[in-house]
Structure formats: structure tokens, C-alpha cells
């Protein structure tokens, strides 16, 4: 009997493990250290959207290689906003930007950047604070499709409206619309800001260091990872930061491990902004 995933059925834990193993074997992506309840929800969601049973999903993952990109896009959460958590940008502006401005050139890594909203938020902030010409932001994600969106830098007016509200709470002096060219129902980020960004594929789980940064922002990515994996990635970030470089995690993501608490100094407890210390 075929089982169709209806609204009130659910993936069982063995089925979840089976899918994780299959994706790892066939596509080389390792989801085994992802947070389980959330991953289960994403899988149930994709099955519902595509009207696939558990067996259909297994079949299509094995036999339709092109489906995997779509799968990846649905499995990873790509909900993001410009200036999400305005208080974070406020803290960044008062506690971190003054230090960044002492560098001749600032390199920022935005890890897990999805469709680019955070990269451009940082670009706007740095520009407004006079660092536009001497900063560069790398945005990375495991998902090639969302990176295409990020490179375009075009967002619907409806979204821009809600981003403008976030911006208002940051206390920045300008206006978000100063940085966009308005089209009929969308807005495109100014090319001047785009020039200071580069988007590329990077997998936090399997890829390594690719540059040295003054600041790394990885917000609302750790929530999808179990603590052991978080620590492995913290190690990657630690090694990718210059001495006294800054690490920004999401609003509700704290560094828990004792060994990393010794390697990072807390700059802002509430916003989870850290600074690399020690050797």
C-alpha cells in the first residue's frame, strides 16, 4: 500500500534516518547533524508541496538528479529579511564599526546568506558609515539557486516596505530607499553596493577556509544544526577570522561550549556579537 503524506501523518524517525543516509550517499550532502524536529518539518513540507509519498521522494532523489537542487532549496530555510533584528544593526554600528574603520580594508563573510538580504544590509550600513569604498562582503550559501537571487539584488516592493520598517528601528540616519532603484513593483539594489559583494557556493559542513576576515556574520544558521556541528563550524570561523576579528551570531544563538567561550570575548551578550581572542 502506498502511503501518501496527508496533513496528519508524519515521517517516522527511521524514515528520516533513511532519507539522510540516501542524500549523503547519492548527493554528498550530509544532513545528519541537522536539528531533527526542524528537518522533519521541512521534509514533510516538501512531500506535501510536491504531493510525494515517502517512497516517491526516495525514488525521485535517486532517479532525478535535477530534482536535488529544488530539494536542497526547500530543505534549507531561505526566509530572510533586510535589517532583521534592527537592534543587532544598532549594536554593530556602535560597537563594531568603529573598530572596522581602523583597518585599511575590511573583509566580511556572510555565511549562509540565502537570497542576499543580509549581505546588502551590511553593505548599506558600511556605506552609510563611510566604509563603502574600503570594505568587501562575501556571501556564501550551499544553495546555487538562492545565490542567483542574491546576485540580482532585486526585491519586491512589498518586501522593501517591511525592510524599511526594520531599517527605521536601526537608528541609521538615511533611508533604505536611498540605496535602491525603484521599478514598477520591485526595487533593485544600487550597482555601487553590488560591486562590493561576491556571492559563491560554500558548504559550511564540508568546505574549508577560503580567506581571512575582519568580521563573520552567520545569523540564524546555527539554529538548524546540532551543538556538535555548531562547534565544528565555530572552529572554521575562528580560523577564518583575523586576530580580534568579530563574529556575529543570530539573536537567539549563543556560544555554549566552554572551549570556545575562552576563544571568543562577548562584545554584546544580547545580540550575540563576539570577538576572537587568544592564539
Amino acid at each position, binding site marked *: 500500500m502506498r502511503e501518501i503524506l496527508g*496533513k*496528519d501523518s*508524519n515521517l517516522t*524517525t527511521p524514515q528520516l534516518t533513511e532519507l539522510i543516509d540516501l542524500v549523503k550517499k547519492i548527493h554528498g550532502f550530509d544532513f545528519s547533524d541537522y*536539528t*531533527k*524536529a*526542524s528537518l*522533519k*518539518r*521541512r521534509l514533510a513540507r516538501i512531500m506535501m508541496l510536491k504531493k510525494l509519498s515517502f517512497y516517491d521522494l526516495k525514488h525521485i532523489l535517486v532517479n532525478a538528479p535535477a530534482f536535488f537542487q529544488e530539494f536542497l532549496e526547500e530543505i534549507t*530555510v531561505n*526566509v*530572510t529579511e533586510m535589517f*532583521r*533584528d*534592527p*537592534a543587532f544593526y544598532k549594536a554593530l554600528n556602535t560597537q563594531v564599526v568603529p573598530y572596522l574603520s581602523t583597518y585599511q580594508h575590511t573583509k566580511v563573510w556572510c555565511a549562509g546568506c540565502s537570497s542576499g538580504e543580509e549581505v546588502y544590509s551590511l553593505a548599506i550600513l558600511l556605506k552609510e558609515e563611510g566604509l563603502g569604498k574600503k570594505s568587501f562582503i562575501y556571501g556564501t550559501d550551499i544553495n546555487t539557486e538562492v545565490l542567483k537571487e542574491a546576485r540580482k539584488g532585486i526585491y519586491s516592493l512589498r518586501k522593501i516596505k517591511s525592510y524599511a*520598517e*526594520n531599517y527605521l*528601528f536601526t537608528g541609521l540616519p538615511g533611508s533604505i530607499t536611498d540605496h535602491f532603484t525603484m521599478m514598477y513593483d520591485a526595487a533593485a539594489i544600487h550597482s555601487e553596493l553590488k560591486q562590493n559583494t561576491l556571492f559563491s557556493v560554500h558548504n559550511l559542513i564540508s568546505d574549508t577556509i577560503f580567506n581571512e576576515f575582519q568580521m563573520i556574520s552567520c545569523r*540564524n544558521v*546555527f*539554529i*538548524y544544526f*546540532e*551543538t556538535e556541528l*555548531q562547534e565544528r563550524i565555530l572552529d572554521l570561523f575562528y580560523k577564518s577570522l583575523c586576530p580580534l576579528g568579530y563574529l556575529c551570531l*543570530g*539573536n*537567539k*544563538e*549563543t556560544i*555554549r561550549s566552554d572551549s570556545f567561550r575562552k576563544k571568543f570575548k562577548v562584545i554584546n551578550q544580547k545580540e550575540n556579537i563576539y570577538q576572537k581572542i587568544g592564539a
Partner: protein
Amino acid sequence: MLLLGGSAGSFKLLFRLVKLLPHDFNKTVVIIIHRKKNFFSEIEKLFAENSRMLLREISDKDPIDSNAIYIAPANYHTLIEKKGYFSLDVSEAIWYSKPSIDVTFESAADAFGKSCTAILFSGANQDGAEGLLKLRQSGALTIAQHPEDAEMAEMPNAAISIDGAEYILRTTEIFELLQNGT
């Protein structure tokens, strides 16, 4: 685990409930209440100051304490993990809500099923109804506030209409139940 979900019209009631629970209630209490993302409310502070139990806003991977009250943070969904901790998620809003009561209830059903008690209070949309049903199906004790007592009846009504609530209780009955321990 005691799960309390509410939206419009439930705040005062939840506040009174939090105030009432004794310091040795010896249960995990999880509160999911809808609110706006940039509305810097003092909900957590207000609740914490008036609670005799340890009360905190949930951070990602917080271990679940067996004698504490937890509040789901704004602009995240809160999920309950089998391994005994909370995890957060920023995915799409459900019924225009983040936190969504459905998301937390469904994950609680999956993780702890019959050891849960859940109460759905006043609200102006149907978030929480499906989740309550899932909890009921997994053996949890499920309760909806009597729609006549709810400032906004849509939320308890939605749960009742899909048979998600095992009991429909008056507000006074809910208070009595919690005072006597569930």
C-alpha cells in the same frame, strides 16, 4: 509538559496563570503567544517579575528544565526536540504567525506525545487547532478555552470544530485544574 497557546485576547489570562503557578509546580511550561516582530514588548520581563517559577525566553538549544516556564521568542518558531532541548526556526509564518502555536504543538506531539497537556486560549485566527489535534492523536490531554469565555473565540472554535480538544473548559475550571496540578 504543559503547553499554553494564545493570541489576541489571551495575554492577561496567561499573565494571571503565570502568576498563579507555585515555585514547585514541577512541570515544564511552554507559552506560545503571538506578537509582532519589532514590537519591543516587555512581555518576558513582566512575566518573569511576576512568576514564582524560573521563567525565561527560549534561546536555541536550551535544555528543557522540568520545573520552569519558557516563552517562545518573537519572530522564530519554537520546536521541541526528542533529545530534551528546544530548537528555533525562522521558516515561513503559519497563519501569519511566528511563533506559530501549531509548530510547537506538533513538535511536542512528536517528541513527548502523551506526557503533554495543552491548552488553547483566545485568538483571532486558527493557529494552534491542527497542533492541538496532533497532540490529542498522540495521547496528550488537550483543552480548549470555552469560546464564550474567550475574548476572541475563533482560535478555540477552530480547535473544537476539528475535534482537537478533548475538554472544553471554562476559564475558572482551567485555573482550578492548574492549581490542583494536572
